[in-house]
């Protein structure tokens, strides 16, 4: 099984972070990477054009929601010649599994990428068992 198939398989199986998409007013669904680390789950979301002030992440009743606003101020005198991407706000929701400690989430925003770390609850962390 190649790496891509393995990742897809893990995604199906892992209850840690599953994506649901509610139909948003926002136009775009940010692409994400979800990485399972030893002690936490890391979510990286691409939201180009969104500054730190305009990004929001909330966690409510097991649903993690990330959203970002893009300022679409039209420049005076500028007319679009060629358009390969559209700009618009971002929105995406995830169901967060039980093994995560939702109180301890840390988030940062840099260069249009939202970086979220959700620690695993104590009992779900891998433990070294001492052999007497």
């Amino acid at each position, binding site marked *: 099984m190649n790496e*891509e198939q393995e*990742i*897809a398989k*893990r*995604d199906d199986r*892992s209850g*840690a*972070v599953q*994506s649901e*998409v509610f139909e948003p007013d926002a*136009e*775009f*669904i940010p*692409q*994400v*990477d*979800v*990485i*399972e*680390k*030893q002690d936490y*789950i*890391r979510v*990286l979301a*691409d*939201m*180009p*054009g*969104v*500054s730190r002030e305009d990004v929001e992440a909330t966690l409510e009743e097991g649903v993690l929601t990330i959203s970002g606003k893009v300022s679409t101020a039209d*420049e*005076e*005198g*500028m*007319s*679009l*010649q*060629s*358009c*390969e*991407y*559209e700009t618009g706000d971002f929105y*995406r929701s995830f169901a967060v599994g039980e093994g995560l400690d939702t109180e301890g989430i840390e988030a940062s925003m*840099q*260069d*249009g*990428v939202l970086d979220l770390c959700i620690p695993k609850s104590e009992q779900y962390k*891998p433990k070294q068992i001492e052999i007497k």
Partner: protein
Amino acid sequence: MPMRDLIPWRKTRRRPETVDRRERDEIQDVFRDALEDFFSSGADIAPWLRRGLDFGPAVDVSESDKEYKAEVELPGVKKDDLNVTVDDGRLRIEGHREQEDKDEGEDYIRMERSSGSFARTLQLPPTVDEESAEAEFKDGVLTVRVPKTAEAQGKKVEVKASDEA
């Protein structure tokens, strides 16, 4: 030759999260083949389509009386990994984006973001002042402005009323 003749007019909407990387690569293959046919005249339009580059970021081009503006979405790219050059009638944007380092015992559960090397080349019309090109990189969006030469900047054509019978 205006920029728009050489840049495909192609609106792309983000696709829903169910599209995984495999599918996206397949779709890119379709574009690659279609565009290679279309541009088989040999013009150096989209080098990212050639093998060796991992992804081709989307570009929006705008024009005003004073300048051309190209905007490229490059979230998560570090400034040091980004190279913008204007040379010989071409605007070239290239660089690479690193994937997160995977330590021992860590797994990607989901991977949607592209990584690797990228490049786009845009043909510039001859009526620009290459020396004065400027680039700004903010919140993952690169904005390149290339001013038009003084002569090319908005010559107003006065329309006189005709009094002919």
